C-alpha cells in the first residue's frame, strides 16, 4: 500500500510538471490537439464515404462501426495521453545513453520511463473520441445501464494496458537494434486491425494471427460489443486474459532488454 502511494505521488509530480509545461507552450498544445482531432476526423470521413456506398460492412451498420472505431481511438488517445511520450523517448534514450537518467530515478525503470509525461492533447482528444461513441450510441437508440458503462470503461482500461504492452515491446527492441527509429510504426500497423470488426476476418491464417494470437481485434471489439449487445462472458474473459498476457510479456521483454543496456557515455 505504501509502495502504491509512493508511485502515485511520483506520478502526480510528473503529471503536474507536464501540465505546467503544456500551459507554457500553448501553441504547441493547440497544434497537437488539432493533429489528433484531424486524425479522428480522417477515420470518421472514411466511414462516411464507405457507408455512402453500402449499408453494412461485415454485418455492422455505420453507427455500430463508429462505436468500434471511436472505442479504438479512445483507447489510443488514452495511451497517447498517459504513456506515449515516455515510451517513445525510451527508444531514443537507449541509443544515446540518456536512459541512465531513468535508471537513476527512485522507482521501477519501466514505470519511471513510461509515466514521465502526461500529454494534455491526447487527453483533450479522448473527449472527442468518447463523444463520437456517445453520439453513435444515441443514434442507435442504445441505453446502456450503469453496469454496462462501468464494464465498458474497465474494458477500455484493459485495452490501454494491451496497447501499452504492445508499444513497450516494440520500443524495447531498441535494446537490441540500437536505432528504434520507425519501430513505433509496428505498433500503429498492429492497431490498424483494431478498427475492423471481428466478422470481417474470415480468411484462415490472417484470422488466426490477428484475431486469436495478436490482441489487435479483441482490444476494441470487446468493449464495443458491451455497448451494442451487453455483457458477453467469452469476450470479457478473452480480453482479461489478453491483458494479463500482454502486460506480463511487455515487462519480460523490457527487463530482458534492460540487461543488455550498457549506457553510451564516454
Amino acid at each position, binding site marked *: 500500500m505504501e509502495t502504491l502511494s509512493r508511485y502515485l505521488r511520483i506520478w502526480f509530480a510528473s503529471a503536474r510538471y507536464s501540465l505546467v509545461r503544456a500551459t507554457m507552450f500553448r501553441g504547441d498544445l493547440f497544434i497537437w490537439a488539432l*493533429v489528433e482531432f484531424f486524425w479522428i476526423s480522417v477515420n470518421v470521413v472514411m466511414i462516411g*464515404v464507405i457507408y455512402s456506398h453500402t449499408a453494412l*460492412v461485415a454485418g455492422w451498420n455505420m453507427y455500430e462501426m463508429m462505436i468500434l472505431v471511436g472505442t479504438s481511438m479512445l483507447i489510443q488517445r488514452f495511451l497517447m495521453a498517459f504513456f506515449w511520450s515516455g515510451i517513445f523517448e525510451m527508444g531514443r534514450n537507449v541509443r544515446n545513453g540518456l536512459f541512465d537518467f531513468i535508471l537513476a530515478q527512485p522507482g521501477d525503470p519501466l514505470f519511471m520511463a513510461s509515466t514521465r509525461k502526461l500529454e494534455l492533447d491526447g487527453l483533450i482528444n479522448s473527449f472527442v473520441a468518447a463523444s463520437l461513441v456517445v453520439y453513435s450510441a444515441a443514434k442507435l437508440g442504445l441505453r446502456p445501464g450503469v453496469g454496462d458503462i462501468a464494464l465498458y470503461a474497465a474494458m477500455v482500461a484493459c485495452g490501454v494496458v494491451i496497447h501499452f504492452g504492445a508499444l513497450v515491446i516494440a520500443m524495447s527492441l531498441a535494446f537490441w537494434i540500437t536505432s528504434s527509429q520507425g519501430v513505433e510504426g509496428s505498433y500503429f*500497423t498492429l492497431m490498424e*486491425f483494431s478498427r475492423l470488426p471481428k466478422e470481417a476476418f474470415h*480468411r484462415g491464417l490472417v484470422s488466426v494471427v490477428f484475431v486469436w494470437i495478436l490482441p489487435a481485434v479483441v482490444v476494441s471489439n470487446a468493449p464495443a460489443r458491451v455497448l451494442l449487445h451487453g455483457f458477453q462472458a467469452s469476450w470479457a474473459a478473452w480480453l482479461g486474459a489478453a491483458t494479463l498476457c500482454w502486460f506480463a510479456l511487455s515487462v519480460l521483454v523490457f527487463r530482458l532488454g534492460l540487461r543488455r543496456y550498457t549506457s553510451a557515455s564516454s
Partner: protein
Amino acid sequence: MTKYGHAFVIGLQSNLIYRWNFAVRSLFWFFHLVVVFILWGAVFAGKAGIGGFTFAQTLTYFVVVFILQFFIGAFNEDYQISEDIRNGLINQFLLKPINYFAYRLSVFAAARVVSGFFGVLALAAALPFFRGYLDLPHEGWRLALGLPAMALTAVIQFSIAYCFGLLAFWFLEIQGFVILSMAVENLLGGQIFPLDLLPHAAFNAARFLPFFYQAYFPAAILTGRQGIDFAVQGLAIQAAWAFILVCLAEAIWRRGLRHHTAAGG
C-alpha cells in the same frame, strides 16, 4: 550538375546504411495491405462493384498507391531539413555554391531509389497472396501519361515536405505541422480511400487541390479509374501545382534566410 550527382551517390550510400529501417517499413506496408484487403473485402462482400469498380480494381488501386509511395513519396525529408536548420548544419550550404533545394532533391531521389527497391521486394513477397485480386488495365497511354504524372507527384510531394521543413526557420518544433498536414494529405491524396468514391461535388473540388496529385492522380491513371481526357487535364493542373509549389519553396527559403541567424564557429 556533377555536385548534385555526388549528393545523389552519397544519399544512396547513407540510405543504404538504414536498409533495415526500409525493410521494416516494407513489412509494415505488407500488414497495412492486409488491413486494406480485409476492410475493402468486407465492404465489397456480396456486391459486384462500388463506385463503378470491382474489388480487384480497388485493391489494385491501393497496391499501386502504396508502391508509388515507396518510389515517389516524401517520408521524412521535412524532418531532415528542419534538423539541418535547427542544428545549424544549414550554414555550410550558405557558404558554398550549392542550391539547397537541388541538393535536398538529389538526396530525396537517392532515398527513393533505395526505398523503391525495398518496395518492389515487398510487392514480390505480397504478390503470391494478392495476384488473383489484381486487375491492371493494358492501354499503353496509361504508362505514357502515368510516368510524367509520377515525376510531377514526386516534385509536389518533395516541395510540400521542403516547405514544411523550412518552417523550422520560425518554429522550434515542426512535427505537429507535419503530422497535421499528413492527415490532410492522406485523406485528400486518396491514400485512405479512392477519391472517386467521394460525392461528385467534393471530388471536383479536390481536383483543384495539390493533395489530389500526391497519390490519387497517378494511381488513378495507372489503374484505369480515369480516362484519357481526365488524365490530360489533370496533368496540366498537376504541372501548375508543381510550378507553384517550387516557387513557394524558393520564396519561403528566401524569407527564412532573412530570419536565420548563423551562430557558432
